[in-house]
């Protein structure tokens, strides 16, 4: 693994302007979908981006993929600044980053055969010459994802959800990208199929040395596939840590609340846990975010400082970052108010 991270994002901001009224077009304000997000992704690792609705995880993924305009901050792919590339300069970049989508039904063109769907990146980036080589490459990709070769002449509607997701994965692999952004790749699948796809993604990563940015709302799924996890809330990063640490020693109140809200399929384990009663209310709208720390209206440890000043991401231990006033070195909060971690 080289020293330069494969992907580095600094202070990313994605703001969508809302239309104002007819006479005052600039009065609409903006949706701050992503408001100052920084992280890095090393080659060969899987970073999870988790959060509930409105947290900005999908928008972050889209921004990295350069499919949404970036309002601020920088994105570097292997040291190269790609934040504001456009048009022709963006083309070679598109080969290096690919996306796997959430919706296995909408992500495939219903009028194209599987052969053409998977092979499209090969054609677009002129990666093979000749029909035979093209055919062979597509079949190789299909085999990688566990699809039988005689399925290549079929159309998407003839496949089940899990199989369509495999087609989507094969398509993402076709261009041999450096980074694959997985946007909730298993959320729309049945439970028994989810496991198949998660295992497939892991196997492919091991076999091909892939790097994943894994966007998901399901923390349990993320546990099984991610090396490091980043928790987002209302466009900000609230906590980032390696997987083991985050799940056994979550520090940010939101992370703790999130983890305790997720039930475990084990009645005995469940009876030992307690649902955190402090989590009230819902995620506020990103058009009108709260002042200071975005989580303060729902946080049982909120102090005055939290209402006024937004916290920044601090490293507490090696690689474990928390964005919370409770953990700031000069914080007035007593160390004893640090909440006990999940058993």
């Amino acid at each position, binding site marked *: 693994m080289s020293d330069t991270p494969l992907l580095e994002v600094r202070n990313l901001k994605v703001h969508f302007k809302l239309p104002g009224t007819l006479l005052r077009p600039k009065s609409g304000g903006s949706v701050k979908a992503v408001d100052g997000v920084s992280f890095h992704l090393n080659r060969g690792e899987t970073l999870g981006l988790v959060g509930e609705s409105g947290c900005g995880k999908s928008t972050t993924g889209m921004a990295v993929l350069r499919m949404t305009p970036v309002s601020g901050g920088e994105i570097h792919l292997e040291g190269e600044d790609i934040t504001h590339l456009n048009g022709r300069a963006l083309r070679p970049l598109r080969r290096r980053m690919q996306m796997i989508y959430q919706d296995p039904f909408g992500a495939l063109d219903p009028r194209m055969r599987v052969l053409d769907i998977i092979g499209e990146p090969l054609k677009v980036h002129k990666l093979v010459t000749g029909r035979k080589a093209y055919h062979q490459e597509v079949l190789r990709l299909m085999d990688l994802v566990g699809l039988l070769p005689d399925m290549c002449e079929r159309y998407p509607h003839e496949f089940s959800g899990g199989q369509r997701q495999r087609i989507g994965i094969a398509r993402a692999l076709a261009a041999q990208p450096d980074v694959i952004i997985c946007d909730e790749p298993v959320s729309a699948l049945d439970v028994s199929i989810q*496991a198949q796809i998660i*295992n497939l993604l892991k196997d492919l990563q091991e076999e091909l040395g892939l790097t994943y940015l894994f966007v998901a709302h399901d923390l*349990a799924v993320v*546990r*099984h*596939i*991610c090396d490091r996890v980043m928790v987002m809330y209302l466009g900000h990063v609230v906590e980032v840590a390696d997987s083991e640490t985050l*799940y056994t020693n979550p520090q940010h109140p939101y992370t703790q609340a999130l983890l305790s809200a997720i039930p*475990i*399929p084990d009645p005995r384990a469940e009876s030992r846990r307690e649902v955190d009663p402090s989590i009230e209310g819902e995620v506020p709208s990103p058009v009108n975010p709260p002042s200071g720390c975005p989580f303060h209206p729902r946080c049982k440890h909120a102090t005055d400082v939290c209402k006024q000043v937004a916290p920044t991401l601090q490293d507490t231990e090696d690689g474990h970052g928390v964005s919370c006033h409770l953990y700031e070195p000069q914080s007035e909060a007593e160390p004893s108010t640090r909440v006990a971690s999940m058993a």
Partner: protein
Amino acid sequence: MSEAIANQPLGNASAPGTTSSLLQVDSLRTVFRQGRREVKAVDGVSFSVARGETLAIVGESGSGKSVTAMSLLRLIPSPPGEIIDGDVFFDGRNLLDMTEDELRDIRGNEIAMIFQEPMTSLNPVLTVRQQLAEPMRVHHKVKEEDIEARCLDLLRQVRIPDPETRLDAYPHQFSGGMRQRVMIAMALACEPRLLIADEPTTALDVTVQAQILELLKDLTRQHGSSMILITHDLGVVARYADRINVMYAGRVVESGTALEIFEQPRHPYTLGLINSMPRLDASEKARLIPIEGQPPDLGNLPPGCPFSPRCPFAVDQCRREDPPLEPYQGQHLKACWVNVDE
């Protein structure tokens, strides 16, 4: 068979002389016809729900769990659907034999339902007040002058802040979790004895999901009502269910208490589901054990056990004969020829 529907006070008291089962379903069969294709959505389902109990019906898409729930109240569009067999005894009365009027008396009154998508289940052009009052008016449960007070009380029970102002708001002015609370309030308006919740939290954020499920648990306990909770999430089931029915391809394949199902799963599908579910407390990057194969095609089921094509324990008998749902141990039932030892 036809008991007079007693003049009941608010708070449906149970009819005297009945057994402890509030709901008893026998051999329910519902089909959908599309052209020449007949899809057996529910294929011989039997179960019971005791008073005050929460029964979870678990299954993936196509398992028939939602159709089962809708069939209880005969909420199936006909055509293309039809209930072709079975009995549904609610407190001794067979719902499938009732006339439309009798059924309407039960719906929203003694049995209420909560759906998955609160936005489409609430009428966007009516205020919350109008929608909450509707079941009360329809079933003549509350006097006109008491309706306002009762509506406010319901909103407080479902923990909607500032109910006085919220009463005249429209559904689009609420967030998803709030709308679901309104739905629950509507469902509880006539103090039903049975609440059917069809994936009530699937469309909601995780933290909101926890709040809603806790709310349901508290309210059912408070009112002593039973609940049928339909979900695909085994975690939710582990936390909230007393008893569990696992469904596959339109039938119940295993039934038991929560502990029995999770600690001693006896049907290969249940075992497969548990093994393939991602868990928060798994060891880091643990490998999941998926269920092989694809979900079944309900219009074209293979002979014998519907799970046999995907079952790692299948033997010849499984592919020839359909196993019945039978007791394995006490009230723990399974529909499988093979003994899956653990």
